[in-house]
């Protein structure tokens, strides 16, 4: 089968599911007579998104920036912490429970603390995006770093590799697929963290989280609330798409997960 054929076919299933879901949405509104202030019709959501396109666009840009900042810090910080955790069993035993704290304490608890430390606004919101995206990168990369093939480690010993060579030529490359798996999850979480942060501690009206506060105050603006959901979805999709592309570029030659049809 040629590549274009396959591409067409890969696009088809999600498009069909999407169409079926929209049909179901319409059907539910018609059958159960759901009012628009509870569940707006799809065309009302799209109309609202179009009406509010300027503020939604700006908000996506601002929220995207904050999410990107938190995401980048989570990817870099997660990898760095993983390197420390993987360095020895004792270090891991001593630090891991405290890394878990970051993941276990709910965001709603963290936000007031951050607001007291740094005030409401971008620094606190970025910190939320960072915290929520950090753990999957750290956990997954740590797993990758301690899963290096034993035979290959023996090979490096017999070949008299230095510790640095073992890390850079063996351990890091074999952990790369794990790191990218963590980063992929982080890419979905960072925008969620940013929007949650904006909703709870935002000061800039041109952000998705803040728009949510504005729209939900008006019962007639339910379609706008759904439009924010739509915008969040596209923002997340953009994040995941970029990471997915990066992962494909880095792994396509050698890793099963990115193996194309041959």
């Amino acid at each position: 089968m040629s590549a274009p054929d396959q591409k067409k076919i890969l696009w088809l299933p999600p498009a069909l599911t999407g169409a079926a879901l929209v049909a179901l949405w319409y059907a539910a509104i018609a059958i159960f007579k759901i009012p628009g202030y509870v569940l707006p019709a799809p065309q009302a959501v799209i109309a609202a998104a179009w009406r509010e396109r300027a503020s939604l666009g700006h908000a996506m840009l601002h929220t995207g920036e904050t999410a990107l900042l938190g995401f980048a810090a989570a990817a870099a910080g997660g990898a760095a912490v993983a390197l420390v955790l993987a360095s020895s069993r004792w270090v891991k035993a001593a630090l891991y429970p405290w890394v878990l704290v970051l993941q276990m304490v709910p965001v709603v608890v963290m936000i007031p603390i951050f607001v007291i430390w740094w005030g409401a606004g971008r620094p606190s919101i970025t910190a939320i995006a960072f915290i929520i995206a950090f753990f999957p990168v750290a956990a997954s990369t740590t797993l990758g770093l301690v899963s290096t093939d034993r035979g290959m480690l023996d090979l490096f010993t017999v070949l008299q590799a230095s510790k640095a060579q073992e890390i850079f030529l063996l351990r890091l490359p074999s952990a790369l697929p794990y790191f990218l798996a963590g980063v992929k999850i982080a890419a979905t979480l960072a925008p969620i963290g940013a929007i949650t942060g904006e909703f709870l501690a935002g000061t800039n009206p041109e952000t998705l989280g803040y728009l949510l506060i504005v729209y939900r105050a008006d019962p007639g603006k339910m379609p706008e609330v759904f439009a924010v959901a739509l915008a969040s979805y596209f923002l997340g999709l953009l994040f995941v798409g970029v990471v997915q592309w990066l992962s494909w570029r880095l792994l396509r030659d050698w890793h099963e997960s990115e193996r194309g049809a041959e």
Partner: protein
Amino acid sequence: MNAPRAASVAIENVSKRFAGGPEVLAGVSLTGRPGDFVALIGPSGCGKTTLLRLLAGLTLPSAGAVTIDGVIPAEARERLAFIFQEPTLLPWLTARQNVELPLRLRGAAAEARQTRALELLRLVGLEGAAAQFPRQLSGGMKMRVSLARALTRQPGLLLLDEPFGALDELTRNRLNEDLLRLREESPFTAFFVTHSVSEAVFLSNRVIVLAANPGRVAAEIMVPFPYPRRAELRESLDYQKLVAHANAALRTYQTA
């Protein structure tokens, strides 16, 4: 590169016990003269692989001594190469880059490395696959790359841990013939662990039969066929008789 010299090996009264476990090897003594091709056969659990790992310095003896050219394995690594059961190729490197690895780790210049790697890939019949990644290669081809990688530093001692066990018989036979041909071009002493008696007899000048629980040398069978050996050796009656003899010896020490 200097002319390689086949190494001598001395295993003196070596015992090995892993922490908390039973004795894996008990009082094993073996010598390898330069140019010897020693095959190690025996039932599973007889410590064949442990013996090989002791020779590579990947594990240390609990008692006794292992020396290669008079020094302990960890100091003889310059002269030593190990071929594992798995090809252990780095999946993110091409065949050529994998063969280059031993020289790269030693800081050799890129150009010299590449020349040497391509030369070795040609020797194992894979010059056309230099730019391919391991996952694009068949099991036999991967083992050939592994073989080429082991020979990049012209080792005096080659340790092989059942390298062809996962291959079909035809491929295995071809690789056996190639291994002997490579040895003629650049002589090395070899210790070869295998489950296949016919492979052991075809390759080696000495077959060591090990017994299990604890692992010890049970018998030694001399293989008198002169090198170079060709594929036709397998059809000779003398060869088949010796394989039968070795099989009988192995059965004697095979505990059920």
